[in-house]
């Protein structure tokens, strides 16, 4: 029976589970103003940045964690987390791959990301984030030629303070929610991308996250700015080693698109989901928001979420510009005791703004998954258009799938459509495939892949391959 197979795959070993033994310079657990000052100092930040962090920290102290999500987890002890961990010799950064710690390269090898090969063959610049500090940035010169800035956020604070000052926190305010306030106070790394007017970024930009060193939370801060007519495609992918302790991850991603700009942001997330009983696993509380400030600007979010014990993530678009476009494509797969509460917000402010949402959820085992979305049409968004489709596939009788779509429509010229379905893999579909000589497992794989097709085809090539492989690997686990 397919259900049993799926149960087996749910029980599969976490393939990316290993720990790289690199000495880290880690702060003892705890959070206070001194810790923030330490981080700021460590990063060589100017005074205004420290002030900015402290302001967020003081606001955070007065806030309470959100409880509205359809998630169940014990309260997080924020004083039990270490807020800084950096590989040794942060001042002495390697200038080329040859200088990179071979152990680190080995880690990438194990993950199947041969850095230099990938960079050379695929033409992808990799800003590899290994525990909070960018260790290596490649292809910087080539990007510089085109005028594109791609560096770690810490570097950007030092090198391009005016740009950072102008845009940081303008899409996701510090006090947007509990986790953004925390992130604003303690963020240690992340990427900064600036594509100037009229430039199409010559390559796809990519960051591989890797959470390492026990008990450290990662607080990424990513800021991408596309000036008038500029375009960029950004890939984010993550894997994490096997761990017993829950690891907190609270990232903030801000995208700014000016007139006619186009930002495509793709994510494959495969962090440790915890063991069968839900022990361990990453807690992922992420705030991602894109601001379509300019007319005819476009922001597209694509995500494939397979990991994490808890996912709390709503990549959103604020469609301010006239005729701006927001898109959200998502596949979320949960198994074991994973819990995902994810979706998107499309805020239509500009005239003629359009958005589409395609969300596919597959839940199995004892997992619970929710789609939570908001489509808001403001009174000035004349002729705004939204299409939403969220489908859930249930595998096994102990899992749950939920949808909580909010629609707030304040304009009679808007057209908003929402449809959702929840079902299981049809016995008739399986029978149809099997009667044509396709094994049950292949049939399940085919059906699941077909179910996700609409989203996969939105992924850039490299990620599409990876995502399909991820699903296939998932299904391979059920052999025997």
């Amino acid at each position, binding site marked *: 029976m397919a259900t049993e197979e799926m149960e087996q795959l749910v029980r599969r070993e976490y393939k990316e589970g290993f720990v790289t033994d690199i000495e880290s310079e880690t702060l003892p657990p705890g959070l206070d103003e001194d810790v923030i000052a330490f981080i700021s100092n460590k990063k060589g930040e100017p005074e205004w940045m420290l002030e900015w962090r402290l302001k967020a920290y003081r606001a955070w102290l007065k806030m309470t964690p959100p409880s509205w999500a359809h998630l169940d987890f014990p309260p997080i002890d924020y004083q039990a987390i270490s807020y800084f961990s950096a590989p040794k010799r942060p001042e002495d950064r390697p200038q080329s791959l040859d200088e990179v710690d071979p152990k680190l390269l080995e880690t990438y090898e194990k993950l199947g990301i041969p850095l230099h090969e990938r960079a050379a063959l695929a033409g992808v610049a990799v800003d590899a984030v290994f525990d909070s500090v960018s260790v290596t940035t490649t292809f910087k010169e080539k990007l510089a030629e085109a005028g594109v800035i791609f560096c770690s956020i810490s570097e950007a604070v030092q090198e391009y303070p005016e740009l950072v000052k102008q845009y940081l926190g303008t899409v996701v305010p510090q006090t947007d929610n509990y986790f953004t306030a925390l992130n604003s106070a303690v963020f240690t790394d992340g990427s900064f991308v600036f594509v100037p007017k009229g430039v199409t970024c010559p390559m796809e930009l990519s960051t591989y996250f890797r959470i390492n060193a026990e008990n450290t939370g990662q607080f990424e801060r990513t800021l991408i700015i596309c000036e008038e007519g500029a375009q960029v495609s950004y890939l984010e992918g993550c894997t994490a080693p096997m761990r017993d302790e829950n690891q907190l991850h609270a990232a903030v991603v801000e995208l700014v698109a000016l007139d006619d700009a186009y930002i495509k942001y793709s994510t494959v997330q495969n962090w440790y989901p915890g063991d069968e009983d839900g022990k361990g696993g990453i807690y992922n509380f992420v705030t991602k928001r894109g601001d379509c400030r300019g007319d005819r600007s476009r922001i597209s979010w694509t995500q494939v979420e397979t990991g994490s014990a808890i996912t709390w993530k709503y990549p959103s678009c604020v469609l301010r510009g006239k005729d701006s476009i927001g898109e959200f494509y998502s596949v979320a797969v949960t198994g074991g005791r994973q819990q995902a509460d994810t979706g998107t917000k499309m805020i239509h402010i500009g005239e003629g703004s359009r958005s589409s949402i395609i969300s596919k959820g597959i839940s199995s085992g004892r997992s619970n998954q929710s789609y939570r979305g908001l489509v808001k049409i403001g009174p000035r968004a004349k002729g705004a258009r939204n299409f939403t489709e969220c489908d859930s596939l249930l595998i096994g009788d*102990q899992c749950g799938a939920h949808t909580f779509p909010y629609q707030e429509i304040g304009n009679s010229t808007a057209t908003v*459509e929402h449809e959702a379905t929840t079902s299981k893999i049809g016995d008739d579909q399986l029978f149809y495939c099997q009667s044509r000589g396709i094994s049950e497992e292949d049939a399940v794989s085919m059906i699941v892949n077909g179910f996700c097709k609409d989203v996969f085809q939105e992924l850039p090539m490299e990620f599409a391959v990876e995502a399909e492989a991820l699903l296939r690997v998932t299904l391979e686990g059920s052999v025997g």
Partner: protein
Amino acid sequence: MSEDTQRFLDRLAEARADRAGEPTWIAARRQAGAARFEAMGFPTRRDEAWKYTDVRAIARGDFALAADADFSPASAATLTLPIDAYRLTFVDGIFSASLSQLDGLPEGVSLQPLSVALAENHEAVGGPLGRLTGVEFSPFSALNTAFMEEGAVLRLAPGTVVEKPIILQFLSRNGEAPVMSHPRVLVQAGGRSEATLVEHHVGEEGAANFTNLVAEVILERNAMLTHYKLQEAPLADLHVASIHVEQARDSRYTSFNLNLGGALVRTDLISELNGENATSDFYGLFYGEGRQHVDSHTLANHNAPRTFSNENYKGILDDRSHGVFNGKVVVKPDSQKIEGFQSNANLLLSDRAEIDAKPELEIYADDVKCTHGCTTGQLDEEAIYALRARGIDRQTARGLLTLAFAGEVLEAVGLDAIAERVELAVAGKLPERFNLAGLVETAVALGDE
């Protein structure tokens, strides 16, 4: 405790004085309701269930309790639905025997005002009353329980089929000062019984009263009940209602929630599908104009395998009106072979009208077929153009298309008097006033061509 809460509790204390000698269980339940209301206070927009509905218009009001049920028979006659039916009439919550009609009630049917049913045999009422809608449900259900005194009790013996509809008529008076009423309705439909229940809220122009109704409906095995709620209260009336339905095996509950009147309207409709093959059908239509606020919440709880729910709600909003739709389907663990369908379509006729829709699914079983669809839009310019190209003026074209939009729900309405009433209201309330008869003629003429 806020002033608002205190004001309502003071009213309660005044009312309590003349309630000596009532059965202890009622006193205890009232007490629990009052305590719960005191603890909760009025909901605010920070409560998820009230996110889009601001009840300050109710909370800040000072409502007395009506003292009598005087109502001019002539004006009552114009308000009463022209349906041959058994009828209980309440004026501002107080039972009016003269405006009621219970002659020829068939055997096996018991239809009584709550006060009479309590006086006759309070123990028979005490069991089911409050079992479905507890004081925990909402501050309004708690308030209703604290004040409960009058309402209707309908009991159908097993196998009873009632041919004529049963109407509960609630009249709202334009009195010197606004009043409030907290009607309590209890329906117990025995096995294989069948009936049509009409809950009709209507009143004198200019009335600005607050009605807070709680209905509990129990359908036993194979019972069938069609429940029309026609809410055409005066435009300044405040109306809150929760209807809680419990369904045993093979039962069928069909609801028509038709909201046309009221300044602030909130309805909660909940069905508990507790037995296999039980079916809930929810049809709804809300029409808002001026600054009306209409909020419809529905919930289908699939507690047993092989249960079915269908929902079709249509909203038409004009001027600065505000509509809220929240439909939820919950499938409990192990409730397999469920089918739940939900559809909500909204039509915005004005730029300042607003709709907030939230169709939810919460599913804990895998062998289910659940879908929901939700759309919001405006009249199709191409369709208007197509009609205009055939010589129909713009206003009539808009009217025809609006009626057609409502048609899907109205077609299912089995009582012509109600369907006509809604059609007239929807057509007559359009900003471009035109007569329905003319419309129908046009439509017929079009069909003939």
